[in-house]
């Protein structure tokens, strides 16, 4: 952790943040999240005293994720930290000496925040969500397909970031005129690799996520601090033919594809989230039109891809 925190772990001034509908309190800065003025927290992040953890070996036998008898989740982050998530309201980080605030924030993003969501009955989708004209467009697809890169390209065209990589949706009560599905503001920086910031959005500020990883958090303009109606979902895929193509999917097909892409089912099952995942995906695909967008592999195709997403946002019915 930072020097001050290492000397007095967990004794930093509590800071409050929003993550979707949750309010988090943490003794370390989490610049990924919007600050909250709320007095009460739904979940508290604590930092225990630093403890040396064996840097190698077989203490992780078959999984870094252990589920405790009380349903709590313990994640052994490869000798760098141990993070426990309990009851949907408590995250405890046990760092090894020298862990920085940036390391801790990144490790929270690597699984514990998602575990917190599952424990609270929320689905932490690995979407990138942008706001176009007052409504949200969800970018979905398998890890590494280019959702964040595309979100960055859209931000460079004036779209606002709603959330990147951990995105929460919900379904407001049915009423005349109310949207069928909304996306919550969440992670307010876009995480991209290598030379993407310079290539796609050279006017933005990029901060390294962690030492040893050539990956950046990019600051872009955020959207409204409240949930936005979802106008469309775009399921991104690298096409085999090297060209761009796009078509509207039916809800059942969209749900099946989204489940394949959303997240690994085995750990979700272990975290007790499989049923809520299935129900949420099904409901989301009934509520929101989904488009399949196949992209060429080259980065040079990105502008045309962003244009297509903007066109989809314009074509889809107002939610």
């Amino acid at each position, binding site marked *: 952790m930072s020097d001050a925190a290492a000397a007095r772990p967990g004794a930093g001034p509590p800071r409050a943040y929003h993550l979707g509908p949750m309010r988090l309190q943490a003794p370390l800065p989490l610049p990924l999240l919007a600050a909250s003025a709320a007095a009460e927290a739904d979940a508290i992040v604590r930092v225990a005293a630093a403890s040396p953890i064996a840097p190698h070996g077989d203490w992780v036998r078959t999984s*870094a994720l252990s589920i405790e008898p009380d349903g709590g989740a313990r994640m052994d*982050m*490869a000798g760098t930290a141990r993070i426990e998530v309990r009851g949907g309201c408590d995250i405890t980080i046990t760092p090894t000496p020298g862990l920085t605030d940036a390391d801790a924030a990144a490790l929270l993003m690597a699984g514990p925040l998602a575990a917190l969501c599952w424990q609270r009955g929320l689905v932490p989708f690995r979407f990138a969500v942008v706001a176009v004209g007052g409504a949200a467009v969800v970018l979905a697809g*398998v890890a590494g397909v280019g959702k964040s890169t595309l979100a960055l390209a859209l931000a460079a065209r004036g779209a606002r970031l709603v959330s990147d990589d951990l995105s929460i949706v919900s379904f407001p009560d049915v009423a005349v005129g109310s949207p069928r599905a909304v996306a919550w503001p969440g992670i307010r920086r876009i995480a991209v690799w*290598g030379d993407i910031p310079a290539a796609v959005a050279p006017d933005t500020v990029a901060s390294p996520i962690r030492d040893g990883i*050539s990956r950046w958090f990019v600051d872009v303009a955020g959207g409204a601090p409240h949930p936005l109606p979802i106008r469309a979902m775009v399921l991104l895929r690298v096409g085999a033919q090297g060209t761009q193509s796009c078509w509207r999917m039916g809800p059942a097909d969209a749900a099946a594809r989204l489940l394949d892409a959303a997240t690994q089912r085995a750990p979700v099952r272990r975290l007790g989230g499989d049923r809520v995942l299935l129900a949420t995906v099904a409901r989301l695909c009934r509520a929101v039109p989904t488009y399949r967008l196949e992209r060429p592999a080259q980065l040079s195709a990105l502008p045309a891809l962003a244009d297509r997403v903007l066109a989809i946002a314009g074509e889809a019915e107002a939610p």
Partner: protein
Amino acid sequence: MTEIVLIASYMKSGNTWMRGVVQAMTHPGLREVDINALDVVRRWSSDRNLFEHAHGVDPDMLTGPELMVLRPAVFRGIAAAANPPRLYMKSHEANVAVGEGRLFPDDVPFLTLHIVRHPYDVAVSLSHHGQIDLDAAIAFMADDEACEGGHRPAHVRRGFRNHAQLPQRMGSWSGHALSFLDQAPGRSLLVRYEDVLIDPRTEFARVARFLGLDAAPSSIGRAIDATRFDRLARQEEAAGFVERPDGMARFFRAGRSGTGARELTDRQKRAVTEHHENVMRRLGYLSHDD
């Protein structure tokens, strides 16, 4: 426990071709393998989905050393799941040391098909694959820290980052070979690319027997026919190859041996031989240039 068949090789040494061979051997009725549907040996050892399936942790937030600490557990988890009975996996990763063990742990039932190819020919093929000149390819092959799809800035560039894979530590050409010659997980069969070209019947039969597949002459003949290089190249020309890197003209380019001896200069050959002499000798490659 699930038995893991590891088709292990340095880059550009015939791994994809061997995947086609296994596809043909496990599908006796197949007349020609589909290069875009090699679904028997579908998984890479560095597959990020396998990692996330095992650990429930996003590998994109972990450093290279952190990832390595967690990698052996992925294979233990696969073995412990005991379903399917056998899983085929391809790999370009060296069997590097991880803590007190290895990337591919000794307590997991592996069958290792270790493929090697003359480093001169690997250099030529690597230069085409990575769109780099021969000197750069030779330097890459000599780099003990060589990595594909890695997190270091030099590796995060067009054509080299495969987002479906975790960073793969290959090490040098000879270091990679030694990690399997001396530290192979489970039972191991060494196959030289050149031997397969010269006598496919004998080599395919060795592979089939090693894997417990049908090694009857008629079956071997069908497998050879189904994986003829000209057929694979023609498929790529007609329909592309999903695994071909962006910008590379052709993946199934030549499928020959001896190209390197013709294309490398004497200086380049010396650079290769001086760095990899012991392993070249051990694999019977030093006489190749005589």
